[in-house]
């Protein structure tokens, strides 16, 4: 991920982070820290999302209508804010997954050539 300009790097990262968050929430609802841990686990520790990036992204996705948030009791009986995918979020996840696969395949092919 050594992109040429900081701007492009940021946008690439943001797109990736959004996709990862949506994917992390595809199976079950999670609180903020849970999303972070799930991404860490899914990517085998490649991506460690800091709260400073995670929470703005969660709120942005909620505002876009892809996530829905609610306060629940956590697994060890603490209050936490849980996020879950909306219908639109699922649709978005499908779209972005498809797009990502296109790009990944294309880039892989390009690098093999």
């Amino acid at each position: 991920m050594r992109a040429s300009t900081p701007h492009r790097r940021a946008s690439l990262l943001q797109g990736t982070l959004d996709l990862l968050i949506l994917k992390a929430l595809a199976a079950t609802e999670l609180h903020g820290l849970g999303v972070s841990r799930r991404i860490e686990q899914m990517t085998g520790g490649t991506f460690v999302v800091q709260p400073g990036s995670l929470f703005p992204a969660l709120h942005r996705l909620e505002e876009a209508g892809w996530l829905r948030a609610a306060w629940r009791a956590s697994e060890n009986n603490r209050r936490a804010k849980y996020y879950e995918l909306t219908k639109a979020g699922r649709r978005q996840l499908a779209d972005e997954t498809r797009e990502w696969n296109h790009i990944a395949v294309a880039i892989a092919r390009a690098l093999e050539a």
Partner: protein
Amino acid sequence: MSLLRNLLRRRRFERDLDDEMRATLDLLVHEKTGAGMTHDEARRAAALEMGGVEVVKDRVRDARAGAQFDVLRQDLRYAVRLLARNPVFALTATLSLAFGIGAATTIFTIANGLLLRAPAGVSEPDRLVEIFHVEIGNRLTQPVVPYADYLELRRRSTMFEGVYAYQIDLTPVSLRADSDGAERIFSNVVTTNYFSVLGVTAGAGRVFGDADSDGSGAGPVVVLSHRFWSRRFNADPTIVGRTVRLNGQPFTVIGIAREGFLGTGVVAPDVWAPVGMAATLKAGSSPDFLLVMMGARLKPGVTASQAAAETDAIGLALGRERPRAMDFGGVPVEGAASTFGVTGASPIPGNIRPLIGAFLALLMGLVGMVLVIACANVAGVLLARAAARRREIAVRLAIGAGRARLIRQLITESMVLFALGAAAGLLLARGMTSLVLKLLPAFPLPLAVSLPLDGRVAAFATGLSLVAAVLSGLAPALHASKADVTSALKADQGPADRLRLRSVFVVAQIALSILLVVAAGLLSRAQGRVTSTSHGFDSRGVEVASLDLSMAGYTSATGPDFARELVRRVRQIPGVQAASLADRLLDDRIVFNGGLIVPGVQPPRGRSFFAATWNVVEPGYFATLRIPFVMGRDFSADDRAGSQGVVILAESTARRFWPGQNPLGKHVAWQTALIATDKSKAQPAPPLLVVGVVRDVLVNGGSRVEAPAVAYVPLPQRYTPEVTIFARTAGGQRIARELRAVVAAMNSNLPIVTSQTLENAQAGPVQIQLRVAASVSGAVGTFGLFLAAIGVYGVTAYAVARRTREIGVRIALGASRGDIVVMVLQHGMALVAVGSITGLLLAAVASRLLGSLLFGVPRLDPLTFGTSAALFAVVGLIACYVPTRRAARINPVEALRYE
């Protein structure tokens, strides 16, 4: 809107964010202690991983705001793109909204300027009030009070910092400065605390103050208005301290009132003089007989209603102390109890405000209707489009778009339209405000009304467009977003339903427009009836000019000869067919200015004389105004002072006194002392010989209360210094300049007070209101008609497009072009017919409300109703023309392939 909601939500959001951060930190600590750290270690590690709670919160806020802004921007871009794709719709919608909003804003601007704002240029207007005279049980009493009452009120009241008084009517005076010729200017007599109570300071020199006195003849000093100072003296500061002559008397200019102050009424005076100088400015007036308008400044912390309670008590007390008034015959009058009211200061006296307010409300109702029509138009089109987008919306709902989000987007679209409309409307209001002022007849007086587009007006226009936008955007938005997902996706159902709803809007538009057009027609017919005919004289093409001979020092010895010479010279002006002179204009007030005694005829109700209107005229008066003689002769040069007194009577007056007899040769007398306090002192009035009888003159619309006797006497036998020249010109050409030259040539000290056409001079409040109401409803109705035509076109065109296939089949099956034309026309004209009939029925009901304003024009005037119906039929046909032609040219082969 989302901004407001944002503000309301902000606090909840902040608390929520705070909780979320704390919970996360808590979870982190828990996680780390679970992994074997001590509590302190875990806390430190957790804080490190969070990376600064405040920083995180900041970034969340940024992300939120960015996302919301994105949504708004997205909505706006979407809305603008949609509008740009349909520029004709965007343009007509914006135009019609601009017109509606602009018109309503114009009316509001006028109401604001006349009724809600304190006079311009005063300090702390919130504490200024006016005090007016009210007669209990009579809403239309004159607001003015005798000067003596003002002094009493000022002495007794405790709620005011100061109470001032001024004369509500301006006094025209002749001004001479240096060696220039005389000029007519308008003076206003005020109490010397006028400026200090209003908080108006001097622009140069000083204004009246403690050094000046209200005493009779106290000080010949004047303050000039800034406008007059700039116009007449080129803002020369050395004028302060110099002497000018008003009506020939020297006055010292002590200062200039500060710029922007135009006085406290609707008419702007050129100079202010102390009330003690009233007699100098107008012959025969003195503070003792002066009627004044009162104003005051409340003490800090005193409310207008507290002050009103006090003035009310003072007014009632004054009424008890005052001796009872006598009527013309010396009989005590059962007068209504009267008192004083207090209300916020504005250029219109408080007790006239409801009248003006009601008229403005009528106008507001008229222009409000065009706004409703415009909204119906926009709503109709939005609805049609929303229906067309049902599929798209259903898809978006199906994939999980929030309904609120969709409604927000649809409303954004109408918001954009209304924002454009409001902006254009405000611009339009600027232009229309000055246009409305132009609709009023040319005033011979300088107006002081300022009609600014202030914050209140802007708030009104914005609020109005917001409400209209939400109302006309919400219905289509709800309708569209209700889209039933499954059925809408299955088939584009419901076009018939959509067409029906749109047709209803179009019918409503037509009905309201025809209602306005009919109202305009009725009002202008009434106006024509009021102004033109059957008054017994011909007011067209007559120039009138008023003079006050006392301004140049003429007396009863010199005045009549001067007047006679003046008339002789006016007759020589090229184009003048006839000219004469009288003591005043014919106006619509019923004037009792003297009693009339007829030997052998007993006046009614124990009076000693008949109430009468005495007119002082010169020979040729009746010929000039085309008032026919029934019998006898006109006055002549031989009817001089000292010769046999003569009189000409109105036909009805003569018939009343001597029914069936020849009135020529009979005698009447003019009783001048109306309130005979001491009957023994009353002078026996000299008998006047009746030499002629003329037709009656009916000045106002015909609503005569109690017909007074009407008599005419020649000027030399009853001299009055205030005279009015009447000059009938060929083809109605204006001769104001020539008249001025004639007067100036005869006496350069004598200014013409007012110069105008007789028709204009006669345009009283009734005519002005009719003229404005007719113009407004006419303009609004025409515009509504235009909008309705667009609506008819839209619906018909849409119907043709939808039925292309059907029409193709019909043609293929042998229908002729004529059949198709009839079919399409039937559809379009059915809308016009239903709308027109509804509108005409509404108009029949509404004309009842106009009732008394119609002056004998029948409520169901066939001419007006017929013409309006025909007009709408023709416009409807034109609107249907294009779609009909398109339908008739449908090619069956292509049509069957269509879809």
